[in-house]
């Protein structure tokens, strides 16, 4: 009886293990192997390439542009989504919102529910040079000279895409932070209030330190998201004009399916994998030591 009980839990793991093995680990290993070959999606022949694909990736003219764009996306997202999102969460949980608290929360969260492609299309219309909402609004306000070909200008394209993501995901981080704030034991806040701490003091000295873990998790999610960036760019500019809004994800995709360079795409995949895994490891290490 005892023996059977010990085995039983493993039966339950098998389906999950099977799925993870076949859909996560094996593809990752295959991808790693592919990155050392020249191959295409429709051809059966593979040619060994050594580090050729990696050299091509790192010496490419667009490589610095892609890294810059991905990093810019991460930095701006950290400031806006995590920073600003936390402030909104604190405000939502304060007395200011009153009875409409739930309404506000839903309004902020709503954009996160729309599909990425739909948002991409929506913003293509907003940024459209002639009939777009943004330029029309600027013209209506008499700011004619500020109108731009937003997605058609190499200097503004990537920032327009980043702005779009901020609109979409700030509410998501806000919601995560709201949950964390709600988990703070009321006693702490009441005790602080009795000691004479105002709302601002309570937020800075009690709430934020107590949601430190969640803040860190949100930051990690945001940074990892920034390096996996794909749909937002693909559905608006596809990396253009020129290569000005190119990012790692789109570069991978275009090489795999447009230029028949699966090996180079796999190498790009490995790079993204290494970046995201490193960030995840940092997260695990820091959260372990960061117990409150």
């Amino acid at each position: 009886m005892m023996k059977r009980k010990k085995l039983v839990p493993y039966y339950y793991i098998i389906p999950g293990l099977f799925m993870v093995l076949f859909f996560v680990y094996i593809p990752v290993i295959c991808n790693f192997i592919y990155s050392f070959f020249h191959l295409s999606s429709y051809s059966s022949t593979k040619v060994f390439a050594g580090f050729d694909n990696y050299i091509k990736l790192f010496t490419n003219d667009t490589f610095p542009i892609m890294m810059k764009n991905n990093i810019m996306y991460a930095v701006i997202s950290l400031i806006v989504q995590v920073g600003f999102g936390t402030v909104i969460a604190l405000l939502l949980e304060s007395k200011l919102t009153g009875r409409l608290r739930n309404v506000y929360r839903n309004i902020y969260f709503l954009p996160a529910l729309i599909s990425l492609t739909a948002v991409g299309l929506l913003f293509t219309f907003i940024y459209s040079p002639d009939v777009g909402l943004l330029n029309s609004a600027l013209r209506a306000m008499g700011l004619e000279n500020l109108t731009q070909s937003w997605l058609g200008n190499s200097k503004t394209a990537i920032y327009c895409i980043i702005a779009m993501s901020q609109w979409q995901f700030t509410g998501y981080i806000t919601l995560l932070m709201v949950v964390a704030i709600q988990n703070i034991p009321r006693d702490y806040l009441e005790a602080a209030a009795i000691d004479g701490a105002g709302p601002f003091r309570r937020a800075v000295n009690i709430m934020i330190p107590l949601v430190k873990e969640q803040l860190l998790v949100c930051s990690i999610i945001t940074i990892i998201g920034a390096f996996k960036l794909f749909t937002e760019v693909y559905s608006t500019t596809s990396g253009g004009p020129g290569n000005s809004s190119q990012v790692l994800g789109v570069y991978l995709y275009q090489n795999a399916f447009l230029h028949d360079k699966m090996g180079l795409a796999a190498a790009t995949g490995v790079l993204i994998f290494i970046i995201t895994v490193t960030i995840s490891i940092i997260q695990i290490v820091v959260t372990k030591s960061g117990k409150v």
Partner: protein
Amino acid sequence: MRRRLGRIFGVLLIVVMLFSLTACSKSNDVSNGEDKEKKVIKLFHRFPDEPFNSFIEKIVAEYEADHPDIDIVVSSAQNQPYKEKIKVVVGSKDCPDVFFSWSGEFSERFLREGLIMDLTESFNNDQEWKNSLLESQVNEYRSGDILYGIPFRLDAKMMFYNIDIFKENNLEIPKTWDKFIEVCEALEAKDITPISYGNQDQWPSSHYIGSLNQMLVDNDTRLKDLEPATGEFTDPNYLKALEYYQQLIPYFNDSVNGLPHDMARNNFAQEKAAMFFAELVEITYLAEENPDLNYGMFSFPLIEGEGDPTLLTGSPEGFVVSANTKYPEESIEFLKYFTGPEVGKKEVQEVGWFNAGIGIVEGLEDQKLLEAYEVIKSAKTMSGWFDASLYSTIANEYLTSISDLTNGDITPEEVMEKIQKVAEEARNTSSTEVE
């Protein structure tokens, strides 16, 4: 209570798993189950928009009615996704039997891998088939002597112009480049946008560059450079072509790179610009966007250069047969019908597209279409679409650099330097690498 919940959950899980299993096997059932006696031919095309999709469905239904033993399963995808999907399925067991493929490099790489069927013999042995199609157009689907596809829709690029705007400003159709610039200048002076142009998707620029290269670059050099193994792009005329392109930039509408091609077409249809460099297949769209638009078309203005000005920019688009099809004869038979004159007549009447069938415009009254057909019919040689003729990495470099050039971010010299670099890489790798 807890136990019961667990049991319910377990049952639910099994249901979900079973459901997903049946979902997986469903696709097989369709082809093997009820139509067991019928031969299934899978057709994959890239015209999911209306009215084109319904037209294809209708033509297929008529064929099935005449051939009770054949079942044609049609699927489709939009332009860009189509390119990706077909590349993934073409090497697999699920490859469609008859599928859309661009002529030139796009198809030829499949041909090199032995994935699409060589139709030369069947075509040459069938005099009736051979005589029913326009030879100049069919030749676009040849690689050397090998015929690998049949055109489904013919196409070429022409400069469309608004007749009313030209009349009001006493302008004549410009035959040469200098006259063309004069016309642009005159329109600009009247505050009319001379040329409507949207390059957000980057391919429209390649049609300008393609036409300019044809005029300026020696034809043998041009053809040699299109081959990945020999392409150098060192001829100074390529640089000249870019400089000619630069001359046009002031006459385009603003924010070219922020405007998709179809919006630029719409601007032309709404008379917001005097000219538009468009494909003949767009006549149908223009009629839909503004049926009252009074427009005509003229050839790309002539430039004195080393090239061949008789080349017509463009290429037909057509269908090929998979080399791994279970029913080669039936597939060819269907292809013959699908791209033949009988369908061609209906095609031009119903959706305004031509195929390579001879005599398809009989009884056609639409003057625009007749004019367009005459352009294509009288062309001796087509040049192919520039981006589709190029090796994909070179095409990509051309498109991204031209987009920067259009924004004024780089110079023509820098563009050519980049292209020569990528061409060199392509030369080095095309010998060792699987393309």
